[in-house]
């Protein structure tokens, strides 16, 4: 019987060390140490032996068992080491492509300009206001010092829906609405959609977007307006951007000015974007006319302020090299797909 155990030990050693994977190793474990394993069946035959013999064989059998367990452990460790080794050696066949892709969404270029401008003015402490697109004539014109029969109305050919309601021709009516509601100090920007009764072509659209700015306080000056617009231009088009103002006319500002910024493409040398002038005209601006303050019930002697308005399409066209204003309203994915951020 002792010899039997020695034989089992020897066989087990061979079988176990010959196991090439964990599955065969497990089979060997079951074969030798399992409930119905070789060792158990040997021990079941101990019944016919004397107590001393039983003791001795039992002891011996336990030693064999421990040894076999040792073989298994060693084999297992080896197998694991090999497996680990081979796992580290083998990798994904191609690391350059993913198996699951997520669809990309794109911004509208007008939104990009709007968001950039809003962010700039928010950083300066302005808040965002909005107003109705279908507007009362009073806010669109009278409150802004544009009485009926004023020649300035020539620039504001409007779509009417009733005697005194029209689609706003600029975002400026929101100035009047906010001032009627709140007291100074005010610092707001108003992005929004506007309408003029213009035939649509490459440079004209009956629908367009503006962003209006308004500041009212006790001693706001023209120099403050210039500083604000310069800061905006530098944040929008680059640190080295310069601004230029020339006198213009808007009934709701006095003095009024047209703002041009130095061309960010050529730096002022002259190119396609600035049509060779070195400057790109982008905004109308000025000091709030006292008549506007009177119309909303502000004390025109106490308060002063400035206002400005830019066309988002115009800026987007210049910034992104879009030549036809109609492209903003076609929603052609071939254009939109370029505006990832």
């Amino acid at each position, binding site marked *: 019987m002792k010899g039997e155990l020695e034989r089992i030990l020897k066989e087990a050693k061979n079988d176990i060390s010959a196991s090439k994977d964990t599955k065969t190793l497990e089979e060997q474990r079951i074969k030798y140490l399992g409930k119905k394993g070789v060792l158990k069946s040997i021990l079941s035959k101990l019944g016919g032996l004397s107590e001393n013999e039983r003791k001795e064989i039992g002891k011996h059998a336990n030693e064999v068992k421990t040894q076999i367990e040792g073989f298994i452990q060693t084999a297992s460790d080896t197998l694991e080491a090999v497996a680990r080794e081979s796992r580290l050696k083998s990798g994904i066949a191609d690391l350059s492509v993913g198996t699951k892709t997520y669809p990309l969404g794109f911004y509208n270029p007008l939104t990009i300009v709007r968001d950039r401008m809003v962010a700039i003015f928010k950083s300066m402490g302005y808040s965002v206001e909005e107003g*109705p697109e279908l507007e009362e004539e009073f806010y669109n014109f009278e409150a802004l010092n544009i009485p009926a*029969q004023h020649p300035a109305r020539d620039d504001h050919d409007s779509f*009417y829906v009733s005697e005194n309601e029209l689609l706003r021709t600029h975002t400026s009516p929101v100035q009047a609405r906010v001032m009627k509601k709140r007291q100074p100090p005010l610092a707001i920007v108003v992005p929004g959609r506007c309408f003029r009764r213009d035939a649509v072509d490459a440079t004209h659209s009956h629908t367009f977007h503006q962003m209006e700015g308004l500041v009212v306080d006790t001693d706001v000056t*023209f120099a403050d307006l210039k500083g604000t617009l310069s800061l905006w231009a530098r944040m929008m088009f680059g640190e080295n951007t310069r601004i230029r103002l020339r006198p213009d006319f808007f009934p709701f500002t006095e003095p009024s000015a047209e703002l041009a910024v130095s061309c960010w493409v050529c730096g002022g040398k002259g190119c396609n974007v600035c049509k060779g002038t070195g400057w790109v005209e982008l905004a109308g601006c000025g000091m709030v006319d*006292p008549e506007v303050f009177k119309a909303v019930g502000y004390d025109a002697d106490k308060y002063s302020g400035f206002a400005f308005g830019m066309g988002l399409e115009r800026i987007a066209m210049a910034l992104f090299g879009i030549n036809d204003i109609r492209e903003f309203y076609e929603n052609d994915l071939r254009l939109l797909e370029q505006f990832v951020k």
Partner: protein
Amino acid sequence: MLVTLNWLKEFVDFDLPLKEFCDKLTMMGLEVVSTKTVGINEALLSNVFFAKITDVKKHPKADKLFVCKVRADKKNYQVITNSPNVIKGCFIVFATPGTTLYDGTEIGERTIKDEVSQGMLLARQHLNLEEKSSDIWILGDDEKTAKEKFDVWAEFDVVIELDLTANRSDCLSVIGVAREVSAMTDTDLIVVKPVVQESLEGAPSIEIQDKNLCPRYASRVVKGITITQSPEWIKRKLELCGIRAINNVVDATNYVLLEYGHPTHAFDFARLDGGKIIVRKAMQDETITTLDGVKYKLSDDMLVIADENKPVALAGIMGGENSEVLESSTELLLESAYFEPTSIRKTAKSFGIRTESSYRFERTSDWGIPPIALDRVAEIIMQTTDGKVSALTDRYVNIFKDKIVNIKEAFVSSKLGIELHLKDVENYLKRLGFSIMVKRNDELEVKIPTYRSDVYRSIDLVEEIARIYGYNNIPLNYFRPKVDFESLIRGADIKEKIREILIGIGLSEAYNFSFTNEAGLELFKINDKNVIRLKNPLTRDATILRNHLFPGLVSSVQYNNKSSYRFDVRLFELGNVFKKLSRKGMHSETEHLCIAVSSADTGYGDCLGIVEYVMKKLGAVSFEVRKESQAFLHPQNSATIVYDGKSIGIIGELHPEIAEKTEMRYGVYIAEIEVASLEKILHNPVKISKAAKFPPILRDLSLVVGKEVQARSIMNYILSQGKWVKEVKFIDMFTGDKIGDDKKSITFSIVFQNPEKTMTDEEAGGIMNGLVSKIEKEFGAKLRGV
């Protein structure tokens, strides 16, 4: 408006390089939009000559060509031309070989069918004297008049095009612009007062009946004149400034219009009944035929110039045919008046006409100038014809007063943000022609000239001062507004948030026009009862304000299918829609979010998935989807989105009929939701609770329910059952014979969790059993056997 450089120099002496001059003028507020060099400039001076054709013969080898001998600059040339009008002995303008013309043409010497052609006979267009010439420029055969004509027309000049703002009516003339140049260059303006010899007895009879609409009317009668052509120098100036020369009288009024900016009119005096002028309102339905042959029916708020019997001019807008100066005319009545601007504008606008005259009057003309402009017209006419001029009648209503405006030193500084001394202010204002009436320590009393109707307040003077000081010399101040708490704490911008969410999951943002039309309503099955129509649409495709966003987006999907070959389209739009409200005259303007998705593998579930993602990202815990039909959606696949008991939008499959008509390749799934409702969700405060430490227990629940039962209602119901239900997920759903035609089977997975201790299987089982019996009761559901 057009002016010429030389004409300006008649009134102000300046010498600046053209570009610098134009830039400075622009920076004064008179925007130069273009310049055009005309006549013989320095470069052409040594190449372009007044020349004589000394011989003409037919080209021996070409039927339509002529060989001319030209004597120019004391040399002889031979030129080939195709102009049949060249005759021996006539004078022309000749460019020698080596000339480069304005349009870039280089003139050389070449041979045409064996005959040498040196140089070129010029047409007026070659000297930029007109847009397009039909023939070469023939100056006639009398050397003296030909040379005079040449000297006048070929003179070097620059035509400057200005874009003037609506307030600067004072600059709608050469003198007006010259006045600005004088202020700009600090050089005196020299305007010689016109002189008229009054040699005719009497003065015109003028009766102003409506003194509000016509506060001033100056007039003279001229008799014994001959209608003839104007001298070349008048014709040239008129034509360079865009007005066609007609005859010496009409040209004189146009000349003064350009020179002084004041419109005047000449009537044939012989055709005025009663020999008098009455300025009155029209009688209702009275008619007048104007110079252009158009007949207008007048209303009684319109101002006319009439004689004893009939209207003879639409005041300030256009003269009448019945009193027009004809070639046979010998007597004139000249008019130079001031008309009330709004009345002129109203009348001109109601007839849809705009003339040089109405344009100036409606922008407010100079009330001080009528007699001067009148005399200037008479003076010019008398330079071209014999005749006698009457005394002046100047009907003048005393409603005009000199405008006096006070301006304080501190006021200027406080508006512009610069330190300016009163003596600088004084100097600037004087340069602009303003008179200082009184000078105090810190204040000036300024008299505003009559031509500056736009200046009447101190703030207007500030702008004038700033213009002279130079807008670009005012410093920059990096200004920061005061902190405005109320608006700064208002929170996130809902639209920015929505864009971020949707773009983040692969949708792109569209912008569509806010208009539709009847055909659009019909195509998209939109009820037209509450739509708002434009009173004055411009085109047929935009007559109605949109009351939904989806038609625009569906059209964008269609556009991308057809024009961009994109069949996987995921778009959204944020925009306002308009509806009439039942209360008369009221309307609503609401902001909507619309989503449209269409592709080979996109279905209703994808669209709802997007909506759910948006709602949850904005902070909604749950919402309902109620089956409800919409005319423009698939009758079955159409639902209302309900949040907090309120409908906030719709979702569904675009009606297959619409999809067919718009030739969609795949079904289009749309959702349209009110932004205000989404904003409310966003602004709901989020409650943060402690992370639950104990392990959750997961149970699947399969139910058989009636087909009409919406799974989301059951999910919402489960969620509302007690605090231990942590999460409910929809797993799957199927229909089929096995469970009955009118039934469907839905499986959910429910997560239970007790925040205080580990939940046992038994506890979870207990809750589950309770839940099942409640659901069975609530929804008529049966637990599905496994």
